[in-house]
């Protein structure tokens, strides 16, 4: 019996001799594994980040927003919150801070020829408390700004950067929808979420927002609020859901036309998205493994044909069919595992590249993904190497020896 070392050495020799061909053969596997490693490590870094983020947000923030079921969207029936919803929430005991928010414009913010496409929020002075985010320079918008519809704005630090104020931005003017707004504050840095900047925004008073959006229609606002006691979160949610359904005149059995979400639920939404990605991923792995496996089977069949005479010689010298079978099987596995290893390396490299260009931090392949890649690659080698190896081992010695 050939020792495993000898089998490995033989297989390695032939894999090395056909270097380029081997790499091309394993390409399907390399790319498949690389894709999986990249996506898994990015998703992993992503969800670590998101989890940390939601944890830091605290679980006591809630958002009430309009929700139009898909069926109604198709029918063109968009639902909106009512101004009276705000009063309902205000009346609920246990609700601490509350603020309506809407997006008065999607236009650019301009200053001195520079532009920023940061989102403009129209909201109230309570926004800072609900979001636990306060100015580091200047001040936040206040009640009077809102009542007098003052044209003042509080900027996020990234927006400040984009507009390239060379000195203190406080007191400078920016243009939103052809109106001039005085910068009164810059908010504390929040960092990134979903790989996107959380510091690219401009906050203006709610009523000022209504005036630039035009009074002819009700703004599509949503409500952010926080509860004083976390333990009261669920009862408050239940109570509010009941009250708002009443306010929206929804009959029994009718679907909610609004959504009441906690940060935790938003995270669940994210998790369900990442679950979806995982399923797509599994499909991808499946396809790439089959493609890679067929490539390996193909090259192993070629290799068996090329080495027919060698197989004949080995049989003449007394090799058992199992010796030949094992030899080719090990070669197929060596090929597929090498491909898997190259795929892992490529995937790690791609992950680093994504980290470099997307700003998502700490992209690392989870150990289970690396191990699984190797296990799958080896399995592919065994499964798809079996037919060529069986073919080699069942060759008739004389016919193999006579093969030209």
């Amino acid at each position: 019996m050939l020792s495993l070392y000898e089998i490995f050495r033989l297989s390695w020799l032939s894999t090395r001799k056909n270097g380029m061909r081997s790499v091309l053969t394993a390409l399907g596997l390399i790319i498949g594994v690389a894709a999986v490693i990249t996506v898994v490590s990015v998703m992993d870094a992503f969800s670590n980040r998101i989890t940390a983020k939601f944890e830091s947000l605290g679980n006591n923030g809630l958002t009430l927003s309009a929700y139009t079921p898909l069926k109604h969207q198709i029918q063109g029936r968009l639902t909106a919150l009512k101004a009276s919803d705000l009063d309902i929430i205000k009346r609920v005991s246990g609700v601490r801070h509350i603020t309506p928010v809407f997006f008065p414009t999607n236009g650019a913010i301009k200053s001195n020829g520079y532009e920023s496409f940061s989102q403009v929020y129209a909201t109230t002075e309570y926004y800072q408390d609900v979001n636990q985010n306060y100015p580091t320079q200047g001040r936040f918008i206040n009640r009077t700004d809102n009542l007098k519809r003052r044209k003042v704005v509080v900027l996020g630090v990234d927006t400040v950067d984009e507009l390239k104020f060379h000195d203190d931005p406080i007191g400078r003017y920016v243009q939103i929808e052809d109106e001039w707004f005085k910068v009164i504050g810059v908010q504390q840095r929040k960092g990134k979420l979903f790989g996107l900047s959380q510091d690219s925004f401009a906050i203006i008073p709610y009523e000022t927002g209504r005036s630039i959006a035009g009074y002819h229609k009700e703004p599509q606002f949503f409500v952010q609020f926080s509860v004083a006691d976390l333990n009261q979160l669920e009862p408050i949610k239940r109570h509010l859901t009941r009250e708002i359904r009443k306010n929206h005149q929804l009959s029994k059995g009718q679907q909610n036309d609004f959504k009441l979400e906690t940060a935790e639920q938003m995270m669940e939404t994210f998790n369900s998205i990442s679950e979806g990605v995982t399923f797509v991923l599994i499909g991808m792995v499946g396809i790439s493994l089959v493609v890679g496996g067929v490539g390996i089977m193909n090259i192993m069949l070629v290799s068996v044909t090329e080495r027919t005479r060698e197989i004949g010689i080995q049989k003449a010298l007394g090799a058992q069919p199992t010796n030949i079978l094992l030899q080719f099987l090990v070669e197929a596995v060596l090929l597929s595992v090498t491909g898997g290893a190259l795929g892992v390396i490529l995937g790690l490299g791609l992950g680093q590249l994504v980290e470099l260009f997307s700003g998502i931090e700490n992209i690392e392949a989870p150990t289970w993904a690396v191990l699984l890649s190797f296990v799958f690659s080896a399995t592919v080698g065994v499964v798809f190497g079996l037919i060529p190896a069986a073919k080699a081992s069942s060759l008739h010695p004389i016919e193999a020896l006579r093969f030209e």
Partner: protein
Amino acid sequence: MIELKSINKYYQSEAQSFHALKHISLKVERGESVAIIGSSGSGKSTMMNIIGCLDLPSTGEYWLNGENVAGFNERQLADTRNHTIGFVFQNFHLLPRMNILENVVLPLAYQRIPTKQRKEQAVECLVRVGLQDKLNMYPNQLSGGQRQRVAVARALVAKPKLILADEPTGNLDSNTTEDIMQLFEQLHSEGHTLLIITHEKEIADRCARAIRLQDGELVEDRLNSTVIPKVIACA
């Protein structure tokens, strides 16, 4: 040692059947040296392949060391080739990706022998054929005569009783032919049973016995008076 009983071999090819061996009966005792002669296509290799357990006869019986080979399964056939028979082919049939030592070790690699002992046995055989300084070279770095000596070393390494050589000097010049023949004669004198297929009369004349095939039939079986037959009574 070898007994063929009315062997027939047919080759089936595209609706045609070719009768390559016709009612061959032959007995070879242990320690004999037999030359198999005959024109090309007369069935010499076909016969040797059957004797070497590389192929099975279509009809008839082949007894090797008192056992009917027809009853062997794949595993037993391979074992017999490994333990009992050593092959030397016209075109050497060395494995190109292995060095000389590894080529010679190969038959032992199919047995349960410790790696160290395999190597010792292989080196011993290579010393014997005078190639002890070429252990790490590859077949394509050697001359034809040297390659055939490697092949002889490989045929010897598992200490087989029977050496089968199919035109072993067919690809060699006269000097190297002489080297190889001397090796074979030495093996014979040590008690190996030797079957050599050859075209060359000089070689046939150096064997104690010669048989001639013609169109698949055994047409001549003579003892060579100038060579002392070396039949070991019973071992």
